[in-house]
């Protein structure tokens, strides 16, 4: 008989309680969970797919939404800040459409002067005359719009010269026949019509004829975006005399010195203009618009859109979580016998709980990582194909991943707990 290999392991001391603190490490639980996931690869992949799509959708949608917001913000930035616009005609509330609003001729340069004198808290006022003109220069023709404005308007609207200068107060006083042209006009008169084809330096000092009236180009405006570049700015006094024979102006633009002044400036202007126009019954023949509000509205619209898209995507994430729960429940039922064996040979509730919980979290975590990759790839692809700019927001990535992991814990907990509560003999009887 061979020498005994086994000796009795523990002293025969009388203990009424059994020492239960002993550890199965996290590494062990993780290895067990990975082994179970690996044993059923296709099913694990399909389970994770719900999370992959959910996280990917959240990231792609937030990226696209943020891209759209950034686009809008960029466009709006060119408009200038704290602007208030006055146009002729009234527009007094919803449902009331004043026929011909904006075409009625009620605003004059005198109104602008009155505002300049009587309203406190403004940093600039300019009347604007818009005239459709046929521009001719360097042997080319271009149909565009000329705007007669005070020199201060160039600053109000955030225009910067890319070459030459803006026109001056002197030009305004003298009725100088000088013009500042936008990028689109430059491209069409001094280039081949493609964006950026015109050389700004070529244009400086050249003569441009607007409806046959000659002007000298003193500056070219730096490009903003879109249709704002299709313009020619000339001194108000010159436009008034040479291009338009009307005494009325198309609009008056006012810049408040501070955003906090907007409401007060708007109210004061209302009073001043009502006095100017001798209106006592409140039947205003002009409309005052706070452009900040318009900007805020546009921004909140894109923000809402982003939230909406993210919300829809989040729903798919929850659906993915329910998929995990479903599979984990099946898995617990399927492995009842295994749970019975593990419990019978000494697994504690915590061991079984962490095994299944870790399995669910690993599934959703791996799904989350893949989802981030797919979501980022999708946003990059969309920005290439559709020409949208997309912004991959790190917070959105963290949020989506964190949410995916939480989905794993949340939807994995119930099946895991169910597994851990099984009695060994009942679980073993289950085939």
């Amino acid at each position, binding site marked *: *008989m*061979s*020498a*005994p*290999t*086994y*000796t*009795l*392991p*523990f*002293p*025969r001391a*009388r*203990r*009424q*309680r*059994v*020492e*239960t603190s*002993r*550890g*199965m*490490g996290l590494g*062990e639980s993780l290895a067990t969970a990975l*082994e179970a996931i690996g*044993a059923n690869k296709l099913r694990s992949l399909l389970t994770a797919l719900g999370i992959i799509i959910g996280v990917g959708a959240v990231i792609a949608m937030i990226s696209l939404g943020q891209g759209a917001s950034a686009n809008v913000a960029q466009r709006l930035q060119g408009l200038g800040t704290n602007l208030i616009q006055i146009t002729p005609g009234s527009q007094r509330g919803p449902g009331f459409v004043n026929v011909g609003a904006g075409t009625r001729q009620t605003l004059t340069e005198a109104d602008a002067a009155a505002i300049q004198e009587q309203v406190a808290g403004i940093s600039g006022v300019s009347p604007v005359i818009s005239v459709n003109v046929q521009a001719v220069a360097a042997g080319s023709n271009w149909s565009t719009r000329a705007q007669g404005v005070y020199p201060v308007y160039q600053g109000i609207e955030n225009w910067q010269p890319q070459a030459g200068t803006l026109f001056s107060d002197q030009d305004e006083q003298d009725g100088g026949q000088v013009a500042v042209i936008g990028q689109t006009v430059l491209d069409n008169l001094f280039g081949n019509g493609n964006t950026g084809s015109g050389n700004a330096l070529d244009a400086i000092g050249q003569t441009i004829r607007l409806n046959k009236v000659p002007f000298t180009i003193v500056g070219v405006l730096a490009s903003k975006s879109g249709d704002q570049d299709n313009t020619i700015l000339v001194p108000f006094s010159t436009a008034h005399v040479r291009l338009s024979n009307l005494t009325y102006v198309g609009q008056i633009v006012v810049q408040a010195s501070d955003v906090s002044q907007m409401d007060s400036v708007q109210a004061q202007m209302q009073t001043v203009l009502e006095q100017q126009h001798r209106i006592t019954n409140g039947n205003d023949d002009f409309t005052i618009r706070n452009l900040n509000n318009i900007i805020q509205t546009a921004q909140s619209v894109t923000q809402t859109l982003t939230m909406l898209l993210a919300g829809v995507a989040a729903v798919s994430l929850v659906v993915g979580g329910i998929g995990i729960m479903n599979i984990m429940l099946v898995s617990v039922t399927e492995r009842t*016998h*295994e749970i*019975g*064996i*593990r*419990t*019978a*040979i*000494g*697994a*504690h*509730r*915590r*061991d079984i709980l962490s095994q299944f919980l870790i399995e669910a979290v690993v599934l959703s975590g791996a799904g989350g990582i893949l989802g981030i990759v797919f979501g980022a790839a999708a946003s990059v692809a969309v920005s290439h194909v559709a020409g949208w700019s997309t912004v991959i927001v790190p917070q959105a990535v963290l949020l989506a991943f964190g949410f995916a992991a939480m989905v794993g814990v949340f939807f994995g907990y119930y099946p895991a707990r169910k597994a851990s509560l099984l*009695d*060994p*003999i009942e679980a*073993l009887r289950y085939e």
Partner: protein
Amino acid sequence: MSPATTDTSMPIVQVIDLHKDYHLGSNVVRALLGVSLTIMPGEFVAVMGPSGSGKSTFMHVLGCLDRPTSGEYLLEGISVKDLTHDELATVRNQKIGFVFQGFNLLPRMDALGNVMLPMMYAGVTRPEREERALAAIRAVGLEDWATHKPSELSGGQQQRVAIARALTNQPALILADEPTGELDTRTSIEIMAILQRLNNSGITIVMVTHERDIAAYCKRNILFRDGKVITDRLVEERRIALDDLAAIAQAREIVAV
């Protein structure tokens, strides 16, 4: 050699008036009807009896897998009744090695993995686990089959894996429910040789068997009927499995010549 820690004066198992009822709807099945027994360290007990007499139920109670409906069970003087789910798990892990009738191995793991499992729950480090598992696998003579999955092993080999798994945490008590039930005579005797060797090393063994021949390798035979112990006697002419195996080998040689 007798282990130094064995206190031979205290029973390892003491059951007093054990009852177990199963409720099936409105029916009550009385599986155990007042079993009282004392098993001392170093004993080797065969539990026998007709089908349905309560042998497996009794073993499950002894193995802390199931709780009795009433009665007292003291395992090494500890009243099992008072222990929690997790404390029972620790008792099963540390003090008892259970060899199931249907082996109950995890199909996805190889023999070594299965044998290491109880030590994982005991918090034994991986290198030590492997070392001890290999020792246990060697003790049951399966060293060439350590990396095979249960589905690649014969019934006798699976039974040996199950015994090795029961050994790894060095239990004081091994409980085996029909460890030779599905095996041929020769393999059954091989299993009994392993159990006899373990018993000689000081481990207390209680096993269920239907066969008188197998019960003859034990030291004490208990007969169950209808949930009660009706006979409890010591084996007079105890068989030694190693001798019988040698005899079988010799007989074969003669046939071969």
